């Protein structure tokens, strides 16, 4: 694998009627990652993914895929990329198998890939049924099978678990997780569900109102979920004054004083100070920020379901 990222955008912007739907987005997806593109509905996820595929043209910014400029090397890039954008595409009057054949001809993929891809999404028993008669979940599976058909180096999936039942979601999740190791596929997927991304992704980009607010590995996002320590005392005003005097920076909330992350020694030291000053300490509690809190802090929005 080359050192350059699989996907790299700089200052990617799309303006519709004066407002920036996507604003200065700098995505970096490295080889072998499962990159979760997370954001509330209407945040600009699909618009960004469509720009990566050249379906819509950016107003400003650059896109490189496999280290190559998208505008100049689009056919080559598309040849190495599979995608499922918005809802699954299919020809309703054709069977699942025939839909796969159309895709196989367009992609010039070997015929044996059809069975393999259908098997992976567990559609081999329904392949002679017309796509129109498929359930939403089956259409989604067909869409995934079609995007996988050529076993591309990069797979772009827009809300891949939409319309699937819980069992199907679990299945597709395991499937996506296995792709980098089994087939060397780098996956870029979007979702508006934090839980979804949390369970699949190794890296995450959080977008809201067209801006990329966070980008990094899942691990470092979790690490930023630091615990805070809260002291509840009988005399919060005096406690605050005393602690400020000694160089601590508590945040007063009602009768509680909250500290960002504190080491254990610091906790006992503060406790001793308060007790020595005859301020009754009622409660010392640790509050861990959940990923959801971080997500909400970042996006400033209620999570949409």
């Amino acid at each position, binding site marked *: 694998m080359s050192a350059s990222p699989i996907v790299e955008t700089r200052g990617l912007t799309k303006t519709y009627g004066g407002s920036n739907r996507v604003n200065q987005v700098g995505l970096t997806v490295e080889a072998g990652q499962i990159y979760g593109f997370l954001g509330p509905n209407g945040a600009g996820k699909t618009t960004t993914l469509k720009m990566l595929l050249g*379906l819509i*043209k950016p107003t400003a910014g650059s896109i490189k895929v496999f280290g190559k400029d998208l505008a100049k090397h689009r056919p080559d890039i598309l040849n190495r990329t599979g995608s499922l954008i*918005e809802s699954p595409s299919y020809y309703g009057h*054709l069977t699942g198998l025939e839909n796969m054949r159309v895709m196989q001809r*367009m992609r010039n993929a070997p015929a044996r890939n059809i069975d393999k891809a259908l098997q992976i999404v567990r559609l081999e028993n329904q392949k002679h049924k017309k796509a129109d008669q498929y359930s939403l979940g089956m259409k989604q599976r067909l869409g995934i099978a079609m995007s996988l058909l050529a076993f591309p180096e990069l797979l772009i999936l827009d809300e891949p678990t939409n319309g699937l039942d819980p069992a199907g979601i679990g299945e597709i999740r395991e499937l996506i997780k296995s792709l980098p190791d089994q087939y060397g596929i780098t996956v870029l997927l979007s979702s508006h569900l934090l839980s979804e991304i949390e369970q699949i992704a190794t890296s995450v980009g959080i977008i809201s109102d067209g801006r990329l607010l966070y980008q990094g590995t899942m691990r470092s996002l979790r690490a930023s979920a630091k615990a805070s320590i809260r002291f509840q005392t009988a005399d919060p005003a005096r406690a605050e004054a005393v602690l400020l005097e000694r160089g601590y920076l508590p945040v007063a909330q009602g009768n509680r004083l909250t500290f960002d992350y504190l080491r254990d020694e610091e906790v006992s030291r503060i406790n001793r100070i308060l007790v020595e000053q005859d301020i009754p300490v009622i409660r010392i509690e640790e509050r861990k920020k959940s990923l959801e809190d971080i997500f909400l802090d970042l996006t400033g929005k209620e999570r949409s379901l």
Partner: protein
Amino acid sequence: MIRSIRAEWLKIRRSRIVPVLAVLPVVSLLVGCINFYFNRTVLQNGWYSLWTQVSLFYGEFFLPVLIAICCAFVCRLEHNNRNWNMVLTSPLSVTSLFAAKLFIVGALILAAQTFFVLMYGASGRLFALPGGFPMEIVAWSLRGWFASLSIASLQLGLSIRIRSFAAPIGIGLCAVFLGLGMYVLKIGMLFPHSLLTIGMGVLSQKGLTPAENGAFLFMNGLFVLLFAVWSIRRMKNEDVVSS
């Protein structure tokens, strides 16, 4: 390119376009034959008179509509289910996509045209017209098919652009009348639909001089290319709207 055609071919299989392809020529032939039957006292020119009657309805009205329907049909496949997303993210070029669609429409129209000429021959025999089947008719039909390609190139462009199935067909109908007007004004070479009238020998059975034939072929080639470039450039440069 071959890949695109093979993919397009698969897409239209088991679709409902074939009955339409058969019915429209039959209807126009029937209307033409009935007209011929009731006006036989005036129409004294045997095979040629029959041709004026059947090709009038077919070439002036049903064939352009049939072309428009075929074009709208091959584009509707892509407008449905956001299939443009899938087609335009395949590694095949927009040019080969357009060419493949034009090829498919061309093949369908050629089939309809052949069917029409065969039926014309059969009905001529049925009326027991004097003399053999005039071979010029085959040449006229082929010329008509060639003019069909420029109309198809235009209609494909419209149908790619317009999501609605019927609107481009409506526009095509307006173009028919415009084409008739331009034919009457003797500037028919400048419009695809009038080229069809000229090519099929619908209103005049004089035949074309070699120079006219050359101009006819050249103008058709030019129109096919012009409309193709227009559509391909548009598909390359504009955002794909799919919802």
